[in-house]
């Protein structure tokens, strides 16, 4: 079985890579939640 832990020198790259994709996705989810609340308020 492979190890889930990554060498220390890759941690920065892993964080950067996940932030790269998570930031726009968080924006999309924020907009979605904002719109979805209209079902209960609109």
């Amino acid at each position: 079985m492979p190890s889930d832990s990554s060498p220390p020198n890759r941690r920065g790259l892993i964080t950067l890579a996940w932030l790269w994709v998570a930031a726009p996705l968080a924006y999309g989810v924020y907009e979605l939640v904002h719109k979805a609340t209209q079902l209960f308020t609109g």
Partner: protein
Amino acid sequence: MSSPPVAPAGWSRWLVPPAALSVHLSIGQAYAWSVFKPPLEAALHLDGTQSALPFQLAIVMLGLSAAFGGTLVERNGPRWAMTVALVCFCAGFLLSALGAGTRQYWLIVLGYGFVGGIGLGIGYISPVSTLIKWFPDRPGMATGIAIMGFGGGALIASPWSAQMLASFGGDNDGIALAFLVHGLSYAVFMTLGVLLVRVPRTGDGGGTASGPSGPSDLEGVQVSARGAVRTPQFWCLWIVLCMNVTAGIGILEKAAPMITDFFADSSAPVSASAAAGFVALLSAANMAGRIGWSSTSDLIGRKNIYRLYLGVGALMYLLIALFGDASKPLFVLCALVILSFYGGGFATVPAYLKDLFGTYQVGAIHGRLLTAWSTAGVLGPLIVNWIADRQKEAGKHGSSLYGLSFGIMIGLLVVGFVANELVRPVHARHHVPAPREAADAQRQQPA
């Protein structure tokens, strides 16, 4: 032809999902095409059918390029595939910018629909095989993350494109500028995937392959793409996917008018903004189902999770048909569950294919299976729209417009359920012998 990018020693497999996501979050923009429709119609004097043409052609090209390009993707590796996806998808936007700027609509159809559509198909299947090889212990979760990105792409693009058009203006120059910014931004964003993606080395990720051309699991079943389409298992799964997607699209395609019709005669009718909120909630369920249900399939098994999608999905449709107009929360809850199964069905199928056919050419087999999606994309809306129109002509209104459609959806889900029950392990005559590299690797191992 390129050589697959083999991971250096110590490369983390957790770098591969963001590489896959950078591609899927980008190409998922396709579902937000509707944002461009009204300004295009006004600026270039198009009707609704004409303005839908680039999207429709893109989806057709998605299915065709995934089906016919799958073997090339397996042969040349994920970096080649992601590069092709980046070039085609972004070139499609640049051609569309030229088309909008010069008022040549055919250039938008050619660019976004044809060229961009090839990018969609190759991009969609590009990380699947690689993710399964890196995560042999959790293939459902790994492919679920990537395919969730395709659902998430529209969530990002929809508000982003709308804000851009509001800033640049809805005339042809504003649309051209928006297309240009989309093309350049997505090129930068997708570059991460091209740079980061690696295939596992011998011993990494639980696999033993040195590249994508050899089976990574010599112990398991390995079937070629050509061999897979000759098995009944492939066609059973084709039916399963087609039925599950048809059932989901049946709701997704008409969600806003459907909830409005269902409660039109109630004491609390649904407003246009509330219906838009319902559509947004369905998108969230679709996305959550992709990662949630697909990860669950690693624990309970692929056959069982499809029993859930198809069996409980049919039950949800039955509940909506019988009691949906009596309770808004029940209607919303059932629709959310159906949409989560719709997303889950997409995301779980690569892992199901891996279980049946091995990792040898799973990307190419997945590409061929996506023709079920194209078929469902026509079937689902056709059933719901055609029947609703006929019912309306017959003088019906409200929830009775959809009763027959829901009955048909239940029938389709039962057909899918039976097809899933018929899935058995692939017969040994379809298995391929391990290629030379894999055999060499096996010989080098101590006895």
